[in-house]
């Protein structure tokens, strides 16, 4: 084969191949025309008011060709409202095109047609009906228009999607309304009004002092008043205008002045001497709290701050405690009479007492105070009185011993007859007054008694002295 024959042969093959290539789309178009009969459109929902969102699904558009000169890629499906207004253009995906659109607000309340049309081949067209219904009415609450001029009332009603109804009576402001304020009604419901003169409703201004701004606002609103200007800085209302207790019309504004909160001062109670277990409750009652407890024991020995101090509410009070209160030690005063002062001092020291005065050390103690046998507190002083030293005291001692012997002998003599003598000679008889007693020394032979001894008691209700102890 010559090269020319080879070239001609190749050209013919190419031309034939090209012709075959052109035939394939043609056959496809032919089959697509057949498939376009399967095109369908569904709407979900298919009824609703203007503004309703609708999902449109166009199926059977697998062979929808691309538009223009494009020979590759998916075709586009246009969704049209009533066949004219384009709602959306969606490329075909797996033979379907899904669009979401909103029913036009201008749509009339009747049946409409939604069309899905392949832009590359209008033979792929499907349609579905959509019925536009009236919008659902949302209830509204009737505002309070009593006391307002008609024009202002009409504006408020319009804002509430209501309408001004019949107007009766004469006056500048609305005296009553029907339906009344707060009633829930359908939109565009007319509200009838009666004109007249409205007497102002007076309310008492509440006391706002010491309250917070929020509390003041709530208190005012609860009685129909409004919070006006807030001057100053702080978190507590210090003054207000109008003042509390004044009667003012409702809706009156009340101006307030605020200031920083002043901490409340409380008095620290006296805790000394109390059981530490009781202290927390006592402090809480006083608006205070228990702080650190130092020491070991149950009784409060001291406190800080001291009792009576004015401190901020909630402050801590620290206490120190001690153990059980030891009882005071009492010792018996020894007998110092007859001994020397030096002996007395030594005797006192031996039992934990001290000599209260300073007489000559070689003097003889004639008396002492307190007397021997008295129980006094450990460490107390005992005073003594001394006589002057002289040469005649041995004689005095001898005389005393002699006299004592005589007395003892007489007592022994008398004691022998005591048991019978007392029974027969002495008796205790009731006295003349209640509590009195009488002792009569009588004789066994019936002779008149020698003496009558009367004892008359006199009571004393006593005096009481109270003193607080600083511990």
């Amino acid at each position: 084969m010559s090269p020319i024959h080879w070239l001609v042969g190749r050209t013919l093959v190419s031309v034939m191949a090209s012709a075959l290539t052109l035939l394939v789309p043609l056959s496809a178009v032919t089959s697509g025309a057949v498939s376009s009969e399967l095109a369908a459109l569904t709407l979900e929902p298919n009824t609703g008011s203007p503004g309703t969102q609708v999902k449109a699904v166009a199926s059977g558009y697998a062979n929808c060709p691309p538009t223009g000169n494009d020979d590759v890629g998916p075709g586009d499906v246009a969704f049209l409202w009533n066949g004219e207004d384009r709602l959306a253009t969606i490329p075909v995906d797996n033979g379907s095109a899904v669009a979401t659109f909103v029913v036009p607000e201008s749509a009339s309340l009747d049946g409409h047609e939604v069309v899905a049309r392949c832009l590359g081949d209008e033979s792929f067209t499907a349609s579905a009906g959509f019925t536009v219904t009236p919008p659902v009415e949302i209830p509204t609450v009737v505002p309070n228009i009593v006391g307002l001029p008609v024009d202002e009332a009409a504006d408020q009603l319009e804002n509430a999607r209501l309408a001004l109804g019949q107007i009766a009576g004469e006056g500048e402001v609305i005296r009553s309304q029907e339906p009344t304020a707060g009633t829930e009604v359908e939109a565009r419901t007319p509200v009838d009004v009666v004109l007249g003169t409205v007497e102002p409703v007076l309310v008492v201004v509440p006391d706002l002092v010491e309250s917070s701004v929020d509390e003041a606002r709530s208190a005012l609103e609860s009685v129909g008043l409004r919070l006006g200007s807030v001057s100053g800085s702080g978190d507590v209302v210090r003054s207000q205008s109008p003042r509390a207790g004044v009667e003012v019309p409702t809706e009156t504004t009340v101006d307030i002045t605020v200031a920083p909160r002043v901490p409340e001062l409380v008095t620290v109670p006296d805790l000394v001497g109390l059981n530490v277990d009781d202290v927390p409750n006592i402090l809480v009652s006083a608006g205070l709290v228990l702080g650190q407890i130092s020491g070991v024991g149950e009784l409060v020995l001291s406190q800080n701050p001291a009792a009576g101090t004015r401190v901020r509410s909630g402050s801590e009070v620290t206490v120190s405690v001690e153990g059980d209160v030891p009882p005071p030690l009492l010792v018996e005063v020894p007998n110092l009479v007859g001994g020397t002062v030096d002996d007395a001092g030594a005797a006192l020291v031996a039992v934990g007492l001290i000599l209260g005065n300073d007489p000559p050390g070689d003097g003889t103690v004639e008396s002492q105070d307190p007397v021997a046998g008295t129980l006094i507190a450990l460490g107390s002083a005992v005073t003594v009185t001394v006589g002057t030293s002289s040469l005649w005291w041995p004689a005095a001692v001898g005389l005393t011993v002699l006299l004592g012997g005589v007395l003892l002998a007489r007592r022994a003599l008398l004691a022998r007859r005591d048991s019978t003598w007392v029974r027969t000679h002495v008796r205790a008889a009731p006295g003349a007054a209640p509590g009195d007693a009488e002792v009569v020394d009588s004789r066994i032979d019936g002779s008149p008694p020698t003496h009558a001894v009367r004892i008359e008691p006199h009571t004393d209700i006593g005096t009481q002295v109270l003193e607080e102890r600083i511990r």
Partner: protein
Amino acid sequence: MSEATITTPLTARAFLLGTDARADTADSLGQTLSRHGVARSALRGVRNLSTPALHAVDGEIGTVAQGLIDLDLGDVLVAGWRKYSALTNAAERTLAMPGSEEVVVLATHRVTSTHRPYVDLLVDGAKVNTFDFELKIVFDVVGLVAVVSSGDLVALRGGRCVITATLALEGAQLGQRQARGDLALMVQLHPPVPLLDTAAAARVTSQTSGQQPSPQPRTAGPDGA
């Protein structure tokens, strides 16, 4: 000195001389007087009075003396508290506000009650001597809480008390005793004990007769605030 705790109402006589039979305590006091030679000293100017008679006089003095100290310790303490402003103020407030009650925290305090009864000794109608007794009762009170209502002391809570009583005759100590006392048990508050005298109570009542504020419980400190 006794460390026992007194838990019942007690008289000064029983506290000092024991709770034995009355005759025994009187006899004990009489013997004490005899040891001190009371009658002998007082009647030394009386002729022909026998020693048994002197002992009998001592015994009788002891008998009447024990009657002189037959004072309820709780009553004595309450008498002292009637001078305590924290209590009397609370009494006035609660009397002025019927139904109210105040809990008064009493500070550590001491009530000293001194009684000076005496016994006259007459021989054949003529007074020959006077025996001056002195009974001193000291209450050291710590940590006591008192409840006051309608002007009365109605309850005592907590606290502790040390009671020291001394009986002396003409400066000579006849007896002394110290013991702890449980005031809630010692002080008889049934019925409640008035803290105000009649005049003070009448004054408060007349002042408040025209106004009757609502009851409001409160706690008063030792200062009465």
